[in-house]
């Protein structure tokens, strides 16, 4: 349906634009990495320095684009396609249409940390005249390119395999079309009170671990907490956002009728995770810098903690509002 649905068509074109810039930036990055001579004032080095500007600018663009593309992708699978595809109510049903749906979404999400890493590395790099992180920072482009390419291919196959007109031409297919598969594990178990206690207690532990610079443990715990957040959200908290006890969709909260609160919640989860991952890299990185920014580490810890507690606060508000005023 790539060629027949212009929402998809436009999305794919925008992805191609993204790919084009990434490609262009990648070429420059390779050139720079190959010829880089720190401390040299040769003509060639000056030209390479100028090329680094293009890479930086391109990656700022890519960061903005990747967020826009993510929102666009969510809009398409969450708002547009459910209106086109029979039987699908939200993104979940759409993504389940074939094997490539979820990989496409996950690969899109996976690009964001790499962009964030690059931008942070770039910022640190440009603070010192030796450019201590060049060409190291450009290595982030490799996983980014791989994730983009595989994500893009998944999207192509995913959209290409969705065939709304097949149903119209042959009835037997439509009547035997698969229903949404049910979840194997009952998500309801994550509504249990002890899961909720763990959910609210873990960020405190993460804070403590970060304070004592136990970053590996903190990353693992943050990952676990983020996973638990999603499970408890689906099993329990999201119902208070919908104010409907039977509704546990994780995508509908992205809709305008819920004020797009989903973007805020997922944004907080993602930024907390990115901050935490960056903290993991920080001790290694710090050694390469002559003049590391004074408060970066504290600020990153703050980002992690604020993101995690803000998330808890937000779902807490929905939850308590319901408990105190409605019950």
């Amino acid at each position, binding site marked *: 349906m790539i060629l027949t649905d212009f929402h998809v068509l436009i999305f794919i074109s925008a992805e191609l634009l993204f790919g084009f810039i990434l490609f262009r930036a990648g070429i420059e990055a390779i050139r720079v990495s190959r010829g880089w001579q720190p*401390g040299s*004032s*040769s*003509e060639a080095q*000056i030209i390479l*320095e*100028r090329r680094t500007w293009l890479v930086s600018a391109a990656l700022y663009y890519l960061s903005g684009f990747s967020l826009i593309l993510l929102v666009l992708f969510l809009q398409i699978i969450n708002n547009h396609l459910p209106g086109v595809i029979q039987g699908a109510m939200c993104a979940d049903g759409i993504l389940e249409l074939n094997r490539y749906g979820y990989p496409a979404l996950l690969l899109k999400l996976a690009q964001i940390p790499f962009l964030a890493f690059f931008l942070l590395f770039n910022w640190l790099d*440009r603070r010192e*005249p030796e*450019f201590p992180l060049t060409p190291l920072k450009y290595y982030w482009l490799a996983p980014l390119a791989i994730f983009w390419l595989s994500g893009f291919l998944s999207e192509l196959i995913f959209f290409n395999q969705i065939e709304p007109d097949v149903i119209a031409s042959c009835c037997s297919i439509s009547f035997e079309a698969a229903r949404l598969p049910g979840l194997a594990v009952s998500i309801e178990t994550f509504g249990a009170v002890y899961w909720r206690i763990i959910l609210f207690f873990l960020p405190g532990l993460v804070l403590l671990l970060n304070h004592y610079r136990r970053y590996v443990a903190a990353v693992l715990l943050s990952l676990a907490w983020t996973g638990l957040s999603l499970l408890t959200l689906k099993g329990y908290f999201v119902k208070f956002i919908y104010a409907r006890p039977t509704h546990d969709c994780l995508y509908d909260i992205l809709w305008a009728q819920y004020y797009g609160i989903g973007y805020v919640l997922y944004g907080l989860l993602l930024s907390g995770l990115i901050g935490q991952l960056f903290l993991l890299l920080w001790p290694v990185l710090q050694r390469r810098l002559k003049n590391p920014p004074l408060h970066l580490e504290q600020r990153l810890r703050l980002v992690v903690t604020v993101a995690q507690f803000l998330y808890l606060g937000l779902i807490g508000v929905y939850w308590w509002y319901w408990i105190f005023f409605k019950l």
Partner: protein
Amino acid sequence: MSCIRLESVHKVFQKDQPNELHVLRDINLELPPNQVTVIRGPSGSGKTTLLAVLGCLTKPNSGSYYCLGEPVSRWPEAFLTVFRRRHIGLIFQNFNLIPGLSVAQNLAAPLLVTEMKHSAVQQRVTETAGLVQISHRLQAPVETLSGGEMQRVAIGRALVNQPQIIIADEPTAHLDSALAAEILQLFALLHRNGNSIIIATHDPAVTTHLPVDRVFTMKDGQLSRHDSY
């Protein structure tokens, strides 16, 4: 502490190409602060190129340059730019004003990439305009100015960042002798205010209006010192 120190600086254009041009050869130079330095030399001898190096606009191919104690020749362009913005005021051979903008906007241009607030920028522009005596034409488009006024704006723009070092490339070339005298008196005032001044010029009038400390002659890319003009 010396204000400027060049150690065997070379500048070559089109390096390793058939039309290679060795413009600066083994330049050594040390200037104490708050002096007036004049660089003379025939056309094409490399004066402007030397000023570009001194002004942190371009990097030497080899040798080192210490400006206000900093090893600027080792820095990448981006850091040179910041350094130049803080410490060096440049007055170009041609006024190089931005057409279409008013005098005030031209004066403000270097401040726009600093974190100065809008009101502070305005105030600095007004002060600077007063210093170079162009306050009466602040809102005029620069195309409508006379040559002398244009040069005042160009000087004002170089001063607006309150630099320690002022570098001027033939500041009197396009002016008649009366206007030239006025401009040179302005430089004298800046010198009294504590600035270091480096001027490239053919104009012998500089000595009559300026307390010149050192005179150098540029010839075929090499610099030699004179005791007097």
